[in-house]
């Protein structure tokens, strides 16, 4: 692998991901290659639905690794992300073992001696058995490595970011009662963000920063081809051309790749052979998710179809 020329290695990544149905641009492939080589997490930013989460899934499938997903939300804390003491179990065990403890400590003459005996047991109740590993800890404990997807990190609080720093740079976490847990095999970490808020510099510094925007027309056609194989070539070209025209409008929510794929499926279901005003009008709600957007796009439909058809001839 190390002997391979970088350009061929990057192409290998590209085709590997393509085999999983993920058509990656050159930049994405370079990012994936680099993150493996220099063991750095990738921070993926971009509008919703361009395949940020899919990327992680594709990498996991391609490399045959388990994917562990941590969905972020406001109020997510270390107890839910990292580890938690099984508090109820601890309590239950102390109740059950109460008598046993009484026996063990019964022989002690003084309070001091009892305490010393108790010390001999060590921290039974704060041992590994009582730790409930959450996604981050699970990811470190996978013997063969894994793909750790930290989804929508921008939804979490700023404090949570700081918690991630240790994992991202050193692939380890420190649990006060147990010590430091290092990764058996460093996981491939993918963080995704919708840029809802700006992430801290410390976090960004530790990551490769990848921005996935809307794909170019050719690339998008290939994506549709791989995801919806039974769509005809003419229709594929037309619909992708149409979507590119739609994206030039000033809309609340532009249709992204996931919408393109949905639309392609819908068109195949309706057995459309080519785009016409009627069918676009009927299915526009697959592409656009706001009433205002649909109204803004309605009058343009015919022009856009014509434009898409024209680019089709020259393309």
């Amino acid at each position, binding site marked *: 692998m190390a002997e391979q*020329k*970088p*350009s061929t290695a*990057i192409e290998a990544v590209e085709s590997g991901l393509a085999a999983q149905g993920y058509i990656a641009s*050159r*930049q994405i492939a*370079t*990012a994936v*290659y*680099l993150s493996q*080589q*220099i063991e*750095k997490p990738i921070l993926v*930013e971009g509008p919703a639905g361009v395949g940020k989460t899919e990327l992680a899934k594709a990498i996991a499938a391609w490399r045959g690794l388990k994917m562990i997903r941590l969905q972020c939300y*406001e*109020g997510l*804390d270390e107890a839910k992300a990292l580890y938690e003491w099984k*508090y*109820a179990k601890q*309590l239950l065990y102390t109740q059950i073992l109460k008598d046993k403890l009484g026996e063990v400590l019964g022989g002690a003459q003084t309070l001091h001696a009892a305490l010393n005996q108790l010390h001999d047991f060590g921290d039974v109740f704060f041992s590994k058995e009582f730790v409930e590993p959450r996604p981050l800890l699970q990811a470190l404990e996978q013997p063969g490595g894994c793909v750790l997807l930290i989804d929508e990190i921008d939804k979490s*609080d*700023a404090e949570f970011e700081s918690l991630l720093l240790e994992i991202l740079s050193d692939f380890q976490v420190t649990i006060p009662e147990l010590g430091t847990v290092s990764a058996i095999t460093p996981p491939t970490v993918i963080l995704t963000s919708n840029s809802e*808020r*700006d992430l801290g*510099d410390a976090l*960004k*510094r530790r990551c*490769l*920063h*990848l*921005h996935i925007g809307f794909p170019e027309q050719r690339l998008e056609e290939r994506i549709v081809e791989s995801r919806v194989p039974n769509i005809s070539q003419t229709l594929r070209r037309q619909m992708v051309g149409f979507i590119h025209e739609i994206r030039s409008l000033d809309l609340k929510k532009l249709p992204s790749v996931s919408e393109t794929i949905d639309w392609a499926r819908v068109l195949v279901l309706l057995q459309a052979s080519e785009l016409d005003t009627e069918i676009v009008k009927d299915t526009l709600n697959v592409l656009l998710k706001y009433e205002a957007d649909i109204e803004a796009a309605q009058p343009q439909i015919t022009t856009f179809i014509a434009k898409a058809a024209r680019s089709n001839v020259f393309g």
Partner: protein
Amino acid sequence: MRENIHRFFRAARGAGVHVSPAESIDAMRAVAQVGVSDRTILRDALLLTLAKSQDEKLALGDCFDLFFSQPEPRQEQSEANSNDVSEDADQSPSSGEASDASGGSPPAELGPLAQMLLSQDRNAISAAIASASGAASLSDIRYSTQRGIFSSRILDAMGLQRLRDDLDELTATNPALAERLRAALDALREAVRDTVAQGLALYAREEAENLRNEILRNAPLARIERRHVAEMRALIRQIARRLRERYSKPRKRQRRGHLDVRRTLRRNAAWGGIPFLTAWKRKHRDRPKIVALCDVSGSVAQVSDFFLLLIHSLHEVVDDVHSFAFSSHLIEVSDILESKPPEEAMAEIMSKVGFGSSDYGSSLADFEKEFMSALTPQTTVIVLGDARSNNLDPRADILRRISERSKRLVWLNPEGRLAWGFGDSEMPRYATFCSVVRQCSTAQQLERAVSDIVATYQ
């Protein structure tokens, strides 16, 4: 190549991309992995490791293209350098033979620069310019006014002095050759000037922008020139973003480690009070509620404009804002500001209440009559105005009632402290009822004032 990448980091900083040492190490590691032979891969790798946002990616991409569009005679340069060194070292006539081949047959007693120019070896010349700009540390260039000095430094480093001597000598002995040399020198000057201009574009962009922003931040808002208004709006938006980032934290926050005993007991009543489930104390934070009263009469209008723009771009931080504009009477303007782009909104407000002579008394009376119910004990009231009421009744009693009903009353005055209380200024009478009175005439003061107001809610 390593040297080149380092210079690229410097250029990237010039383009406004923050490159820390740790990031440059990462980038070097990435470059070591992908190699430098394929430029698109190199570009992707650098963009991945150095840029941390979409804007930075664009800036860095441009910077990369500009940087590597330079003539890049790497191999030749090192050779040319070694040539230079040897020629400089012996300075003897015999070194002329190297350039004899190119047909000009320049007389052997000329200096190296003259020989290079006469032999018209483009690669050698651009390589020499590149190494001379290295020697003159062109990457330290910061301001456009430094172009002259850097050009002359580069020319000096290339041996201009020797060339001048040669020229003088040649004019006497061989006028035709002197003419050729003079033309070549002009061409060289031009090339150097271009190099310096490019260097300026590469390394100095950020500095120039910082300088301009710095000046803008401290310029009095009321007397800002028309052509700067758009830039000022951009600056205000920047300030708003900064404030948003600083203050838009979640309102509820668990305080781990502080057990809420009452809630814990209640929750575990079913298990006889054995605390299976714990409840932790939470801290509540209010988001600011702001009522802004802005004077839009002639002298203060511009400041009010920027102030309203700032307040209304703080959605994430501020719960709700009610804005009122007044000069001779007062109207609510929140809806106008929310629904229209800033330029239009301000024009509409001005057409409704602007251009009158200000009457604080009747404006305050208007407010009391209609909008007093907007005030809650969590509200901060901000009055922006110069408190010049044209000798009409100031109605400070209304201000007292406003102050009593609200959390704080902040008065921002665009005039300097010295002018307060002189002429028709009612500032001292109003100041009695304000929690804070501060001068607010520049963008910087505006930022501080708003930042302090929001901070009281944290």
